[in-house]
């Protein structure tokens, strides 16, 4: 662990980047604390990769500044910044051995030869590749190349390690393993990680804090739980996890669907009036017989089952409400044993506390 000076490792302050008249990064301010694992999550075109490039020095902001351990590096070129990047395409040097790849950064800093050998060995051991010392990177698998790229960056002990969708080119199984591996390495070396991804699962699994970006701006910053359970915008709610949406009209603590059914609103949204969008997660919903009693903590609506899909650990049930809106219920297989067949009518129940309420703005539809 290298606990350096007090204060954040990395700070974006009002950073804006404009490409041909369009702001791809908009007034982004973000503070990254030492040792944090931050995931920058967003769809393609959200500006997350540009933000990373600005941190690395491959792009320079049109407005705002970047502080690295308190030092303004806004106009510094990449080779004068104490950050290192793991590229999506790995970008290993094809004409050098694995060891020479990892040694490259240390050689630029004129580290003594014996020390380089020691550090390279250590870094390759960290990623479990010490046996591949003399190999050409071109002979390695995608996952192994990814580890070399990681060792090549980490061996320099950067203030911040930048990772640009490093796992997106790997197949699902290796990707899952690398997620756990990355988290272990993060804990082992204690370096600050800034991880860019479009994969919400990746962000939820690995990050201490998640930064959700949309159209160049920060949409929400918070822990995985905060982002998942209390999304501040429909965009975040929709992008992280699945969501059922209902259009309704709010008045005096409840929202009325077009068929007259009532949805009770949670405490914080009781003041709302007028058109709203109600959201709830498919896995927080459960199905009950049509004549079941709706508890005081629950919301309940009637629906007709349109399809039942068994997927091993979970079962997905699609339903149509009486006013035509479609919702989805996901539950573990054992809960659904006594479900009525397709075409049957049931009661959909979920807790008032897990009901999300947003303004009914048509532009928020994704």
């Amino acid at each position, binding site marked *: 662990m290298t606990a350096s000076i007090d204060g954040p490792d990395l700070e974006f302050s009002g950073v804006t980047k404009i490409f041909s008249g369009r702001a791809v990064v908009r007034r982004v301010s973000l503070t990254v604390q030492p040792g944090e694992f931050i995931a920058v999550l967003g769809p393609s075109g959200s500006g997350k990769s540009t933000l990373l490039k600005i941190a*690395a*020095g*491959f792009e320079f902001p049109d407005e705002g500044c970047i502080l690295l351990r308190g030092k303004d590096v806004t106009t510094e*070129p*990449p*080779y004068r910044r104490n*950050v*290192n*990047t793991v*590229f999506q*395409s790995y*970008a*290993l*040097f*094809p*004409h*050098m*051995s694995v*060891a*020479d790849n990892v*040694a*490259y*950064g240390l*050689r*630029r*800093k004129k580290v003594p*030869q014996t020390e*380089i*050998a020691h550090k*390279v*060995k250590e870094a390759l051991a960290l990623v479990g590749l010490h046996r591949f*010392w*003399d190999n*050409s990177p071109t002979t390695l698998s995608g996952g192994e190349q990814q580890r070399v790229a990681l060792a*090549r*960056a980490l061996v*320099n002990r950067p203030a911040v390690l930048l990772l640009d969708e490093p796992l997106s080119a790997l197949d699902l199984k290796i990707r899952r393993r690398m997620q756990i591996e990355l988290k272990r390495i993060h804990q082992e070396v204690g370096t600050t990680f800034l991880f860019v991804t479009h994969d919400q699962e990746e962000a939820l699994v690995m990050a201490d804090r998640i930064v959700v970006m949309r159209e160049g701006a920060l949409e929400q910053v918070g822990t995985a739980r905060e982002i998942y359970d209390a999304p501040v915008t429909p965009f975040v709610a929709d992008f992280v996890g699945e969501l059922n949406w209902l259009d309704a009209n709010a008045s005096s603590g409840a929202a009325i669907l077009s068929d007259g059914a009532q949805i009770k609103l949670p405490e914080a949204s009781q003041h709302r009036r007028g058109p709203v969008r109600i959201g709830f997660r498919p896995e927080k919903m459960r199905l009950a017989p049509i004549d079941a009693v709706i508890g005081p903590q629950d919301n309940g609506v009637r629906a007709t089952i349109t399809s039942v899909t068994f997927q091993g650990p979970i079962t997905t049930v699609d339903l149509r409400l009486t006013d035509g809106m479609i919702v989805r219920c996901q539950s573990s297989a054992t809960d659904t044993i006594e479900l009525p067949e397709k075409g049957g009518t049931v009661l959909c129940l979920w807790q008032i506390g897990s009901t999300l309420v947003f303004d009914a703005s048509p532009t928020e539809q994704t």
Partner: protein
Amino acid sequence: MNATSASLSRNAVGAFGLFAVAVYFFLYAPVVTMVILSFNDSIGIGLPWGGFTTRWYRESFANTLAIGAFFNSVRLAVVVSIVSTTLGLGVALASRRIFKGKALVLNALILPLLIPGIVLAVGQITLFNVMGFLPGLWGATLLGHLVYTVPFAFLNIFPRVHRFDPNIEAAAADLGATPWVVFRTILLPQIMPGLIASLLFCFTLSFDEFTRTLFLIGSENTLPVYFWSIILTDPSPAASAIATLSVLFSLSVIGGGLLLLNLRRRKGDSDATPVGAH
């Protein structure tokens, strides 16, 4: 044998085989003929065979005009290959960037390849005359050769530069390499085969060039121009001997170059001494 030959008729296979033999015959028979005739103890080029002699070689090595022409050719070819490879590299590197009129610039560079050498030579000598630029080896001829070889240099280097992933250079910069170090340790080793090919190619193009040189060189000589003059005035087997020596020289330059390329490929390369294995 394989499916292709099995599906062809016997006659077709025979015809193709005969054609292939003919191609190789007409490729190499003239060279072999010339080599044989350079040992002919006769006063003219050609048959009849007058017996074996090495006299024409002894004469050629004592011929100061021929030796002078040879060294002119070598020096010119060395300068042309280095200058055009440097220029070709410059254009290839510039072509990675996006700029206005890029396609026009690149196409205009390649276009002269389609113009007959003699047409360009006449144009050049006329232009140089107007500019008051006298014919000669190191002025007009050098320029004429460069116009000819730079497109070839570019075509040898461009594909290597073009297919090189810019992310790899970004990674080097990210690891602390200044732009010059990135070029020296990352890009240069990767495009080296293209540079060596360009050097070899431009060397032989210049060494063998005749048409443009004849117009531009004035009273000086390169080996092809000298060869032309003795064929016109004194066609003895000495001409065959000079031609044979010239071919031997060209082959050894190319052979040496290919050997160099092969060695590099075997050795692999790295910026510094490799990190010792433990």
